[in-house]
């Protein structure tokens, strides 16, 4: 018995050491002589519980991974929804000598196309899209938000007793539309008779209208709601009030309605940021596009610990995730 325990402890020790070594080896901070400087330009606030916050959190994670503030420092310009001002910011950061300038907003692309050629020694990253304009110092990144949307849709349709689901969207475009289409596809694939109602409120910030949009769904019989973008906090409140299920995306929204949030699709931009940093360390400043999806862990399903998910639904969700990853499930984003 004693020998066995000794062996176990020894194995454990080795595992831990290996793990620690592994972590250290992954971070290429050794490759950078000076502090790795990153600048990011974002369209909304860093605490919007949506798009911008997910990138801000990812950068914190990267900073941690690289070894703290001495290894990597980052600055940000938030609230840059004026494309013109964002362009000036991107150009300015590049000329200030930042190693990596992240333009976290699809509206910044046009500006980037002009700025990047002027700064061949700077690496740029642009989301959310796959277009690098054929330039060798732009990385592009995108989120396959329809994947998590699909999984959410599957869970929602399985759990729904009324057979009606509601979606509150901002504007029918880009990342939002991808998520919504994925959700609808997932729900309909699980239960062909399910009714998924969608309304787009025409704004990213009108919380009151989002709230009433959710009320509309409740009145139409929905017992499961979802939505995307920062104004969605209004809809979450309605879900809570009416004891409906909520499915989140872009960030974990469980804290806002612990009894009602079932699952969230969370973005882990750090997954691709790590690759980008590694490539920069190796001397490549761009030319590749990345996708965060369920396969590479850039997107992950985060289940609310406070919500009791029945076992068979949980395994259905897991199977769905697996299916998307290995390609057996294709998401039809029909027009």
């Amino acid at each position, binding site marked *: 018995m004693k020998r066995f325990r000794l062996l176990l402890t020894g194995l454990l020790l080795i595992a831990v050491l290996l793990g620690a070594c592994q972590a250290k080896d992954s971070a290429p901070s050794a490759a950078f002589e000076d502090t790795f400087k990153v600048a990011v330009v974002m369209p909304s606030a860093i605490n919007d519980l949506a798009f911008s916050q997910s990138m801000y959190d990812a950068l914190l994670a990267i900073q941690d991974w690289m070894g703290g503030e001495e290894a990597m420092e980052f600055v940000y310009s938030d609230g840059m929804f004026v494309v013109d001002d964002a362009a000036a910011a991107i150009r300015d950061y590049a000329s200030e000598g930042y190693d990596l300038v992240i333009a976290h907003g699809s509206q910044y692309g046009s500006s980037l196309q002009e700025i990047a050629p002027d700064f061949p020694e700077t690496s740029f990253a642009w989301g959310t899209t796959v277009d690098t304009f054929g330039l060798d110092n732009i990385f592009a990144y995108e989120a396959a938000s329809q994947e998590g949307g699909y999984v959410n849709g599957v869970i929602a349709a399985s759990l729904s007793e009324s057979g009606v689901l509601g979606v509150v969207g901002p504007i029918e475009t880009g990342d939002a539309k991808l998520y919504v289409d994925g959700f609808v596809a997932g729900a309909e694939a699980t239960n062909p008779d399910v009714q998924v109602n969608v309304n787009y409120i025409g704004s990213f910030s009108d*919380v009151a209208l989002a709230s009433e949009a959710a009320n509309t769904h409740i009145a139409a019989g929905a017992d499961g709601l979802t939505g995307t973008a*920062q104004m969605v906090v209004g809809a979450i409140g309605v879900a809570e009030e009416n004891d409906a299920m909520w499915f989140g995306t872009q960030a974990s929204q469980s804290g806002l309605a612990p009894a009602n949030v079932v699952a969230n699709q969370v973005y882990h931009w750090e997954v691709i940021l790590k690759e980008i940093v590694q490539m920069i360390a190796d001397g490549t400043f761009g030319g590749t596009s990345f996708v965060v999806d369920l396969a590479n862990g850039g997107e992950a399903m985060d289940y609310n610990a406070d919500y009791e998910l029945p076992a068979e639904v949980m395994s259905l969700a897991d199977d769905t995730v697996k299916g998307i990853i290995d390609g057996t499930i294709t998401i039809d984003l029909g027009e």
Partner: protein
Amino acid sequence: MISDLLSMTVLVGILASGIRLATPYLFAAIGETFGQRSGVLNLGVDGQMLLGAFTAFYVAITTGNLWLGILSAMVVGALMGLAMAFVTINLHAEQGISGIGFYLFGLGLSDLLFQKLLGTVETVKGFSKVYIPVLSDLPVIGDIFFRQNILVYIAFALVPIAWFVLNKTTLGLKIRAVGENPEAADSLGVSVARIRYFTIILGGTLSGVAGASLSIALLNVFQQNMTSGLGFIAVALVYFGAWRPWGVLGGALLFSLVNSLQLWVQVLGIPIPSDIAVMMPYVLTILVLVATVSRVRAPSALTKPFERED
């Protein structure tokens, strides 16, 4: 599909939503009506609302006392009103523009305070729906009118109160006189400055409550720029309502009801592009005003500073 719109569920849903949506517009627009009736245009309403919304939320979440939240929103709104009044009455600043300045200030400051004092988006346990013994149980009427929270009722109650004050009290008479003919009012011993200070501060107070109604009653959350231009619509509604409280009520209801209608239009799958649907309340407001060509003129002294010839 269009016939679905006429089903009971949908109609009840539209009406109930419309009443809720109208609440912040009512608070803000009634307050603005007083100000405009006395001759002052305040375009900074949205900024006052945002500061009021944040203050109410912060106080509610730290003290747990909702009425204290309302009170602090009123104080903050009144302070903004005081600043606006000083700038308008004592410094004769161009009203439309000073209003925009206050709007930007309120927008920025509320966002800044939110980021520094709270940091994350969270929810608060706000005012809950009031249950009235018999009325709430009425089949259709109950669902629409009597399952709302107390701030909704207060907002609607403000309309007859405002009408009464403006038309049946001496104060109202003075306000109207100051707005129509400040020189004459002044010569009759009415302090134009005092009346305008009162109406502007009142307007600010009500704007603060409008914001609070969003953050601790209807939505129970604060987000940067959560009003999304609501204050400007409220000011526009004062013109729609021809400076009369009942007219303003009509405008607020029209706008809000069409807004909830367009949400249903999308849900019921009526094939209108979402952006066109979202346009509906704005287009309809203009069309209704065109159709009801009004003979009413603005208060003559609106936006004109007053200076006493000593």
